[in-house]
């Protein structure tokens, strides 16, 4: 079982890879809409990528209002 810190680290790596930004530019409390310069639909794309990686189904509505990587990690961790 992953720890929430491991989950967070994996999310940051995946986000960097998916949106082609240097991993060093991302930190846990970043507003990912701003840092990654993405809209809510692109955030949903990231959610699909995370589902594939973590092997869980993540309902769209549970992630409404989530804007930073740390909260994202908490929500995913709850479903692992």
């Amino acid at each position, binding site marked *: 079982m992953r720890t929430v810190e491991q989950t967070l680290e994996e999310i940051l790596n995946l986000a960097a890879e998916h949106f082609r930004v240097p991993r060093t530019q991302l930190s846990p409390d970043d*507003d990912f809409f701003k840092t990654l310069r993405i809209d*809510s*639909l*692109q955030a949903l794309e990231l*959610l*699909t990528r995370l589902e594939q990686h973590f092997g869980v189904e993540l309902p*769209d*509505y549970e992630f409404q209002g989530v804007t930073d990587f740390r909260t994202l990690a908490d929500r995913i961790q709850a479903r692992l």
Partner: protein
Amino acid sequence: MLDLKPYQSLQEALRDALETFHDHVCLIESDRGRERHRLTYGQFRDLTRPLARALQDTGLGADPDPTAAANRAAIIMTNQSRWLLAAYAIHYSGGVLVPLDYKLTGREQLALLAHSQAHYLITEWFFWQQITRSEGFADFRARCVVVTDAPADAELCGAVRWEEFVARGAGREPVFRPRRRSDWACIVYSSGTGGRPKGCVLTHDNYLEQCWSLTRWYPFWPGVRYLSILPTNHAIDFMVGYIGPFVCGAAVVHLRTLRPEFVREAFATYRITYVCLVPMVLKNLERGLRQRLQELPWLQRRWLAGLVSLNRMLTRGRPRPWLSRRLFPAIHRAFGGELLAIIVGGAFSDPQMLQFFYDLGIPVANGYGLTEACTAVTVNNLKPFRPDTVGQPLPGVEVRIVHPDADGIGEVVVRGRNVMSHYLDDPELTAETIRDGWLYTGDLGRLDRDGHLQLFGRKKNMIVTAGGKNIYPEDIEAFFEGLPVKEFCIFAANYLWPARTLADEQLVIVLRPEPGQTCGDALHSELTTRNRRLQDYKRVHGYLVWERDFPRTASMKIKRDVLAAEIRAAVERSAMVPL
């Protein structure tokens, strides 16, 4: 389709539709590419009977006053079959439907539930949890709460599971409670989650007339499949993803997840005929399509450019879907091959984006509407395609421009049987908004020689996001309460500094510091932190420091229009510090 003119109420028309189109498919629900279920109109009717009966057993529709709070029932759900089953059962029972936005926070939903005084709530487990954990839940006074999708071990906090509730009504016929055209059908909130709630009271007449006029230009028929993407609580989807298709015997496709890849897949799988989108979603489709086209080899791109020119010439007067599908078979296959139109509205659409799709043979009908006008005021009928306008007034709808300037631009006012009855419990706001039967929209526009409406900005202090959300600055201010300044006020930037555009609308917070206070890094950081707690579409884009006290009324309310005029006269937009 049914002839709607003789009907007195929505439920009467819908009841007949379920019989008339008994064996046709009305609903398809898919989850991540897996079809969950498919219902015919007959099956839909059978599923709603026990639900309506159970609602009636708890008192829905029993109050002889059709407008009584005891007859109001709210729905907070994502797009799914049960949304429409519940809406049908509420209306069948003589209830007034209150569709609420599932994207609001629990606290905001509680505020609107309280304002609407709905005695019933039908919602999904996730949203019910959100509500029960919100501040203000102790004051929540609904008589009956029904929840769907609740896990087996869930603590229901007084709610009843959908399955259990429906079972209570099984085997007994519900009573059909007729309503008149002038009776209330829905209370739809156009805004006001943090400030002054704007509950638009829409009558059965509003819906029947709006449906009649929309289907003149965009008819549905059995076999048509409408992809429901916009939230059903939104006026557009309620009309085009429920009432319209149902009275015509068409099918509605719901997706439990709206990830772009599943939306793309649904077009092909279900051979979608119509879809309504907000510009943000259309932009995403455009981005994906452009990227794929750019990856084509040079020669193919040249060939495509030639086909685009040919298609443009052939479709100058009107769309010719059969022809365009032959010119661009691969693109049209990706959209299911039967798409007749994408209807786009709810916010400003970039004409170049609309032209991009039309050039590929995908007609995009740009429209304009507001909840206060039931759904739509104008729509492009594509004869010919006009990306630069939001179309012409629908049949039965009148549009005028009042106090036009030298360029013919003035406030857009609307009259017709689609215009709402009033704002719930707000006669003052109603009187400001509807004058002599005309709805004052607060939008600035011009009618051209062909009767097409062009929009140029807003007279009112609000913004509409690319996702179609109406944001009123007053509603955001509560999130900045306690900010360490003397006073503050939020404005739409285009209201402070009028711009003849509806693109990229922004909010700006005006800060009046305490005497001697400097607005340094600490304040900037505080603003950023608070801003981030807001949903992304509600965020403030920048701030402005204002060194004078705000003008106030005798009751100490900020005189926003006076303050705006002072700021406009003294400061330029470039003074806004981005957040």
